[in-house]
């Protein structure tokens, strides 16, 4: 990647709002809107409330993890283990509550599952972060290891079989809604908003950017680089656990193979959203747009009845186009 230094936006916003500038800044968003318009023209049901709800629900699961992944990538790291952690955390949670007999808890068993899933996710993230910082092993390797380790652990747990049989309270988290908005979508909004605030308005957020932008300068600015690094892996682990719980609630079963190859889709969301894999540049707004782009593509191509094999081709082409368009818009903006 040749254009690291100059082509990018400082991680803060202009003070006055300007539509053209906004669209040029979020070229992918513009592209997404055009894409949606295209799908809507072709298939009238695309913009139905029902379909939009479908898309958002589908997006929310990996979108939640992608928000956490943004923090990790901002530090110049990566987490390949998210898919496995998602499955592991959900399975442990579901296993414990169904194992000890859920109804006994007075209908609140799901809360226990939620807590356990999040705790497991957090813990795995902590382990990754500690190994990365203590032994200075590249995040790619540590989380690649984590990816197979937690997947293996998931398979061992219930001998590869899924755990099912949740009560309505549990299922609500995946299938319920509040004022018509599905619960997972609400969770995604909440998580994205929280992360946005953290990255943009808090000291910790600034530290994340600093560590990714120039680790040595960050250290000399008094930042505890290792603490920041561990924190971002903890965050993404926690969110993977949360997403795992929501997914199991949505599917009504916690599968051992859940989230397989999610890591790529999640990292893609982040990168499509303009966050640099080299760290220090990007943000959570772009990630949500990136996740939506993938979700819209997956849905729209099916709606248009593109044959599955061709779908893969079209999907690849459009993703590349979207990012190329984004770069072009940014360049144009730089030229003015």
């Amino acid at each position, binding site marked *: 990647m040749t254009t690291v230094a100059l082509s990018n936006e400082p991680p803060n916003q*202009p003070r006055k709002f300007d539509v053209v500038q906004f669209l040029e800044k979020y070229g992918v968003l513009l592209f997404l809107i055009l894409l949606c318009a295209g799908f809507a023209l072709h298939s009238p049901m695309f913009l139905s409330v029902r379909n939009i709800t479908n898309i958002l629900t589908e997006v929310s699961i990996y979108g939640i993890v992608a928000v956490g992944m943004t923090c990790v990538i901002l530090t110049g790291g990566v987490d390949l283990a998210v898919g496995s952690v998602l499955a592991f955390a959900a399975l442990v949670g579901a296993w414990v509550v169904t194992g000890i007999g859920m109804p006994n808890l007075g209908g609140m068993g799901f809360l226990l599952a939620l807590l356990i899933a999040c705790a497991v996710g957090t813990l795995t993230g902590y382990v990754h972060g500690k190994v990365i910082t203590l032994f200075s092993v590249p995040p790619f390797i540590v989380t690649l290891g984590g990816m197979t380790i937690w997947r293996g652990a998931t398979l061992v747990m219930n001998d590869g079989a899924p755990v099912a049989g949740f009560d309505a309270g549990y299922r609500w988290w995946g299938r319920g809604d509040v004022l018509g908005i599905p619960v997972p979508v609400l969770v995604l909004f909440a998580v994205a908003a929280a992360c946005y605030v953290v990255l943009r*308005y808090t000291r910790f957020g600034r530290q994340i950017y600093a560590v990714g*932008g120039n680790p040595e300068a*960050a250290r*000399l*600015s008094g930042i505890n680089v290792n603490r920041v690094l561990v924190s971002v892996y903890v965050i993404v682990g926690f969110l993977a656990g949360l997403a795992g719980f929501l997914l199991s609630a949505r599917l009504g079963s916690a599968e051992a193979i859940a989230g397989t190859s999610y890591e790529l889709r999640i990292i893609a969301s982040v990168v499509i959203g303009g966050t640099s894999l080299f760290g220090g540049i990007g943000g959570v707004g772009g990630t949500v747009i990136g996740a939506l782009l993938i979700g819209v593509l997956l849905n729209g191509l099916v709606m248009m009845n593109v044959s599955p094999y061709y779908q893969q081709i079209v999907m690849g082409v459009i993703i590349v186009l979207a990012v190329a368009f984004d770069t072009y818009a940014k360049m144009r903006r*730089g030229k003015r």
Partner: protein
Amino acid sequence: MGQAILRAADIRKAFPGVVALDGVRMEVEPGEVHALLGENGAGKSTFLKILAGAQPCDGGELLFAGERLEPAETPIDRQNRGIVTIYQEFNLLPAMTIAENMYLGREPLRGNGLIDWRRMYRDARKVIDELGLGLDPRTPVRVLSVAEQQMVEISKALTMNARLIIMDEPTAALSGKEVDKLHSIIRDLKAKGIAIIYVTHRLVEVTAVCDRFTVFRDGRYVATRPVEGATVEDMVRLMVGRDVEFQRRRERYARDHVMLEVRGVSRAGRPGEPHATILRDLSVQVRAGEIVGFAGLVGAGRTELARIIFGADGCDSGLIAVDGKAVPLKSPGDALAAGIALVPEDRKQQGCFLPHSIRHNLSLPSLKRLSKWKFFVDEKAERQLIEDYRRKFGIKMANDEVAIGTLSGGNQQKVLLARCMALKPKVLIVDEPTRGIDVGAKAEVHQVLFEMARAGVAVIVISSELPEVMAVADRIVTFREGRITGSLDADEATEERLMSLMALGAGPGGTVRHIHAAH
């Protein structure tokens, strides 16, 4: 006047929000050393990058040796024409060795088309020795100090077949001895008919080696004059547009209270690590309100000691106390908490977050103070802080949201200084604080250091410019080969006395090195 080798006319260049060059011109003759002067942000580096083909210009005409230079030409095309550039910001590959950097893209080949490593190292060694550098060409660049990196850049330029060499602030990081060496090389080049464009903020150097000078101000051409008959004051007046007063002497603010105590710091060198000079039993006391200058040749261990005090590097033994309390030597975070602040010498590697905004760069270590509800950044207070320092230092910027990487070198340095000032430290260590800062701003920086001292801060100034150390410090501590060799009151210090303390008994190359045990 003979035929000009370079003729630039009406060069224009705008960046978003800034007009960097507004129709500047310049003429250089063969065998001439032509100084290019101007305040920070005047557009010097931008102009030179356009000459070098590193940046396109928006308009204007360039003639080199009678031929038109096409705007589409790349650095390699310009190099092939004989225009060789030493950029202000280094462009070295840290993981590669000195020789690899020197010959990057032009490695000597054997008959079979493969790289002739042996010859490359031999040739590199020759050039390095000519410069009196005393470095092994197999040393990876990442372990070099800033001064050494600068010398590598110069060596690299010397290996090319040049007709015009562009030097953008080549001496900003060098101490007297290296500067003299460079000047004698420049004279050799000149004798060979090679033209040189020389940018510096140390105006005495202009008098020493240059034939003519051209001044830019705010992206505009001001004047070209012969050096003969011009005084430093004349140059400054052209650059700034008014007279600048230099404060020669000032009051002293030193109190009796010892603010910083450094006792018995020793460290064995570790090959392969940056800043690896052996330190032997260093002790220094700095009182509140006192300004202590560290003087020494390149590699004497000044930076090393500063980094140890700041907790950035470890040491084998020693004690650091601030205000009577011992400070753990673990991390810069501890040092900052104890009230020690450091402006590092390498602004690109250790200072700036290049793609981030000026605001984020300036306020980062002070955020604790600038926060509300513990975790959140108080942006109003933050903006106020930036505004204060923008005014105080005259930082030239479109607004505080632009990336620091787009600032001119001198302005970046000002932001980093402001960053440390904003911390309101008890002990302030500045390593080459005025590196790349123009004369006017330099006086302002000194003024700020005095203010800090008056407020009771213990200040350590490391500078390779002896006149600067002598002008600023109350007391000067001299270093040689990782030892402290003396401590002189500013009143009794003369350049001769300092030089003898800094260099006496030094082996070839100034210091006894213990590098490249890696092999």
